[in-house]
């Protein structure tokens, strides 16, 4: 019986007629960030035409700076979303970290660097708690981090007012270690007469690291798998809970980093700051090709998403439009970018 069956086993066809090789362009367009790149080019050209000041290198440097302040956070948020989770507390966590560093240094009159380290510990702890609650309870991270978002917002205001009797942190520029910390987190330098903020460099470095992790390491494989199908990932031995907690802590780390930049640039920080930014980070990641459902996306895409936000943000100013209309144009452009992104991805997938 087995002999006759063996005869039935035809040799595999040398070429599978069902798999049509797409063109090089189709393959490029199938990448998650392709739609965002097309959108960024369209928006760049649009403001290049309608807003003459936008064409200056120095203006573009400002665009890059604004983009970088959002792009830094959009990077770990993109990783977290690829891993299948949200973090709505990310916007206020930036402010929490900055307040923590400045209040600690000021109240205990210690070196700014001590405050910076304390803030790092606190920011990582916030990320850990978010992640731990999510993996232990199985409650959607949208709800868990919505809770921690409001808690942090309240803590930021209440503790700042209790400690300083004001709604902003005191100026820390006279405290020891301030200037060296500022050099690390909030300096700028000049290339060819154009001033470039160091956050732009950090942004590029972090995006490259995140991309390398995602595409070239085992951890990256695991991030995609926990977001794409957590039970399957667990079945093949991926430590799903540890991965998710780690991703929330990466968001915490970057909230600390961004918070240190904001604090050391302005010497002080408003306790109500940061609310609403969490959506900008998520929008940047989604415009950049991250799926809301997880398992798909890219760090480069999130960077392009942040760039789209920065260009729109500044482009409206350079175009001299009524700033009252700012959020309307912002929303319309982002919606347009998402539609274009979706359209291109569908076409690319159909062409595969």
């Amino acid at each position: 019986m087995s002999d006759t069956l063996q005869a039935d086993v035809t040799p595999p066809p040398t070429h599978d007629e069902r798999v049509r090789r797409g063109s090089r362009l189709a393959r490029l367009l199938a990448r998650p960030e392709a739609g965002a790149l097309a959108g960024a080019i369209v928006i760049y050209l649009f403001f290049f035409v309608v807003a003459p000041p936008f064409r200056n290198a120095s203006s573009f440097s400002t665009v890059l700076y604004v983009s970088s302040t959002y792009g830094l956070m959009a990077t770990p948020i993109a990783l977290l979303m690829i891993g299948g989770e949200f973090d709505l507390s990310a916007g206020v966590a930036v402010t929490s970290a900055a307040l923590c560093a400045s209040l600690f240094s000021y109240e205990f009159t210690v070196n700014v660097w001590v405050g910076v380290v304390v803030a790092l510990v606190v920011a990582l702890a916030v990320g850990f708690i978010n992640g731990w609650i999510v993996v232990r309870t199985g409650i959607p991270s949208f709800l868990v981090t919505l809770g921690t978002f409001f808690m942090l917002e309240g803590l930021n205001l209440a503790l700042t007012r209790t400690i300083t009797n004001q709604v902003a942190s005191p100026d820390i520029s006279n405290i020891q270690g301030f200037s060296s910390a500022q050099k690390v987190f909030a300096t700028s330098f000049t290339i060819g007469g154009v001033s470039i903020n160091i956050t732009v460099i950090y942004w590029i470095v972090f995006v490259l690291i995140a991309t390398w992790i995602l595409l070239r390491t085992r951890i990256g494989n695991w991030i995609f798998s926990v977001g794409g199908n957590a039970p399957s990932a667990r079945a093949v031995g991926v430590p799903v809970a540890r991965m998710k907690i780690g991703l929330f802590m990466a968001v915490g780390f970057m909230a600390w980093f961004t918070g240190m930049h904001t604090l050391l640039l302005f010497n002080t920080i408003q306790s109500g700051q940061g609310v609403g930014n969490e959506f900008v980070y998520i929008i940047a990641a989604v415009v950049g090709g991250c799926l809301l459902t997880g398992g798909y996306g890219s760090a480069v895409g999130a960077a392009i998403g942040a760039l789209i936000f920065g260009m729109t943000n500044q482009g409206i100013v350079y175009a001299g439009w009524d700033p009252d209309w700012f959020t309307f144009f912002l929303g319309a452009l982002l919606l347009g970018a998402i539609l274009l992104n979706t359209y291109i991805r569908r076409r690319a997938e159909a062409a595969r």
Partner: protein
Amino acid sequence: MTTTTTTETQRKAAEPLVKLIGAGKNYGSIIALSDISLEVSGGEVMCVLGDNGAGKSTLIKIIAGLHQPSVGTYEVEGTPVHFSSPREALERGIATVYQDLAVVPLMPVWRNFFLGNEVRKGLGMDIALMKKTCKQELLDMGIDLRDVDQPIGTLSGGERQCVAIARAVHFGAKVLILDEPTAALGVKQAGVVLKYIIQARERGLGVIFITHNPHHAYPVGDRFLLLNRGRSIGYYKKEQVTLEELTGLMAGGSELEQLSHELEAAGGAAAEAAHEMEDNVSDLGISRPPPSPDGGG
């Protein structure tokens, strides 16, 4: 173990890879499985047939190391084992391919293939090697993918099943447990999977093929274990049973007869259905159960 090392080694070669003797499983007061014996050697396909709720899942869980049998013995290559996790079973070469396949649809084929077993190189992974190995392993199973970079979700159900099987084989499986691999597939797709089951057998693996379809089991199987309500209702070698008899046993002769009586009592159209069912039951030869239910050994 009172035997000496030499006899041990000799025995090992002759012993079946997996052997259950009188195994049973109770969950509290519920007897999910009782008195099941089966064995599978290298190059053999052991088919486990049963309808829903027959105890197939419990049996898989015992062999895969997810549960321990409450009674009876479980031997691997002649040595009694007590697995406390699937990972331990895997280390002994017993791999399970579950119905959901444990694949991540949006990830490329090669990433799925190596997920959890990535080949590392420095801080990163040896991607070129993994892609090459994946393509070669799939080719050896007779699956020719032009692009191992395509998301595994773009493959057909049968192809995905085959990738999952190839993955288990590559990572050192000696015994493959396939949980209803043909259940959700069309006729042609199921044929493709059956082909790979034969291929795995030809490569010297033992296969435990769980199914409720005797038409899928009979062509590829060497032994057949029929389960009903947690009990064995027959254990046959291929030469002891025909496809018709298997089908009849699977249809659950007495239960069908009872159902036909109930329908008859309902009268009208139901009675007609009942007559048809009775005819089918006698056509299947259920009234003449096949001889020698002891097929082991």
